[in-house]
């Protein structure tokens, strides 16, 4: 398969990126017979935030979940096409799913901390992957992760409290801390702010912007403002197809496809 530029792609805009982490080519996802993703090709670059927008049910979550093979957990889901991470086909038989998920962190729409202490929530990943040699190293990882997630000052005195006792916004930042504790290369976020108020949302957006320095980030969002604020590139999905990709500034000021324009101007969605 030709990786440089898909020829018969109907997507408007340049789907390629220099030195990408992820390369998806002609990806289709089926739920039983129903095709949820049609021939999507896109690159995800390092140190950038890619926003995925589109009306509800267009397949944003489905595509995102292909990237860390979370779709494997849905028996009905079937993925075709090619997805490469650092040149390795992640759907190859030799690819270990557990290892892939350690490299590709995920933050979910609804904050889902483990029903354990704040400390244990963050320490869980490093512990199962054997990242900390001793207790002191683990403490260090927990502290650094919570600091990077901007939660440390709020919880440093109550690390032994249950993670579920935090507010929704704090829980979501805890989930981000948990994801970055295993030092992934990519972080996938599926509507990370949809359950949060504007202040908590602003904090998470700042956080995403900071994290961009170290990770590639994919954010699914329903908020056009959020996409415009945090992302460098934007991908617009419609009914399972990738309609248009481009630099965020360009997409929002000068959409080329009429569906993109209709969506970002609020005529449907």
């Amino acid at each position: 398969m030709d990786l440089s530029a898909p020829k018969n792609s109907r997507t408007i805009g340049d789907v390629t990126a220099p030195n990408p982490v992820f390369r998806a080519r002609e990806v289709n996802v089926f739920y039983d017979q129903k095709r949820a993703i049609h021939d999507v090709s896109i690159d995800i670059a390092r140190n950038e935030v890619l926003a995925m927008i589109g009306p509800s049910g267009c397949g944003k979550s489905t595509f995102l979940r292909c990237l860390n093979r979370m779709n494997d957990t849905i028996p009905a889901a079937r993925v075709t096409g090619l997805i490469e991470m650092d040149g390795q086909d992640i759907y190859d038989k030799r690819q270990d799913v557990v290892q892939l998920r350690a490299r590709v962190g995920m933050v979910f729409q609804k904050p889902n901390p483990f029903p354990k202490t704040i400390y244990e929530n963050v320490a869980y990943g490093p512990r199962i992957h054997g990242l900390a040699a001793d207790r002191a190293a683990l403490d260090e990882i927990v502290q650094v992760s919570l600091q990077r997630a901007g939660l440390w000052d709020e919880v440093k005195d109550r690390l032994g409290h249950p993670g579920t006792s935090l507010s929704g916004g704090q829980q979501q930042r805890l989930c981000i801390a948990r994801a970055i504790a295993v030092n992934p290369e990519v972080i996938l976020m599926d509507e990370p702010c949809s359950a949060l108020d504007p202040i908590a949302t602003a904090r998470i957006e700042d956080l995403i912007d900071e994290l961009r320095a170290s990770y590639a980030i994919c954010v699914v969002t329903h908020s056009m403002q959020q996409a415009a604020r945090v992302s460098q590139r934007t991908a617009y999905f419609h009914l399972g197809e990738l309609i248009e990709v481009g630099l965020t500034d360009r997409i929002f000021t000068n959409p080329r496809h009429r569906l993109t324009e209709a969506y970002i101007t609020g005529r449907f969605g």
Partner: protein
Amino acid sequence: MSNSVQQTQARVAASLRRRYRAERRFKLYGLLAVLLGVSFVLFLFGAIIAQGAAAFRQAQVTLDIQYNEDVLGLAGERTPEALATADYAALVREALRARFPDAQGREGGRAALRLVSNSAAHELQRRVEVDPSRIGTGERLTFLAGADVDQFLKGKIDRTLPEDQRPLSDQQIAWIDALREDGALRLAFNRGFFTNGDSREPEQAGVLGALAGSMYTLLVTLVLSFPIGVAAAAYLEEFAPRNRWTDLIEVNINNLAAVPSIVFGLLGLALFLNFFGLPRSAPLVGGLVLTLLTLPTIIITSRAAIRAVPPSIREAALGMGASNLQMVTDHVLPLAMPGILTGAIIGLARALGETAPLLMIGMVAFIVDVPRGFTDPSTVLPVQVFLWADSPERAFVERTSAAIIVLLLFLLIVNATAAVLRRRFERRW
């Protein structure tokens, strides 16, 4: 417009009254149902406790025993064989004759001896064999009274009946009254009920053998059915592919839960006793049979508990790069544990009360010795209840109820342990 709003409000108000009435009616029915249930329970417990309470006290008689060599028929011999065959009951008889000079002749002696349990003779034999120098001396000892005396003291035998319609003669009743007069015969706490095994003599019969048998059996059941059941449930829920085979297994597990328990007893008889040659009447085999019986219950309830764990927790764990097994052991099972424990307790409580399948594997035998291990012949509490309820002697009636009380207490302890464990595992998410 405002007219229609008023109409709507009037209709709502009218329907409100109807709805509240329906709710009050429903609450009343609910309350009645609860009251009915509670009154049945109270009646049942009240009846059992009223009947069984008497068994916790037992008539005891104090006698002055003279270890008379001639009465024992020893004639100077002290060999173990001679000591073992000496007539110890005669010592009791003579002690009674010394107290009641009218107990003469064979008839009188036998009537007097009926006042004291035959365990007295065994007790005396034990004392002499431990220390033969007792022969020629005397001492004051307290023995179990005979079962009829015990029943008489508890008011279960009516002295106003004609003599030939009651188990005690006028003469015996006179002796009993005399003994009571000077405090030699009284009701005391029945320790033997908790320290003895079963016996043909009601006054010597205790519940310890059955209790120990129940504990050994339940331990085997718990140790086998809990891990196997939880592992099977976790496998079926989290690992097994969904196909015709797993559907078949699922249907079969549900069917097994509905199989009458006696069928499991037959299976145990054929498999464990006849095929594997395990010992008959043993708690090990009983536990194995009850494991078969409780497994479906534990598997079904554990699966329900595992299924109730929110999918978001699984996604969180998998998203972190946990393997399936880590997801299950670190997150799903701890969260499902309260539900799993509930299921295990329901299963174990049922196992504790099972009688029928244990009859099939011989745990219904009359066993005097308290079992000391998993392969010793033994019985269990419900079977003991069944055996005593079947006995003709009057004095077994109260023991039957007392054994039920012990069984219920045992059940209560098992349930309370589970409740404590469940509280410890319960967490919010």
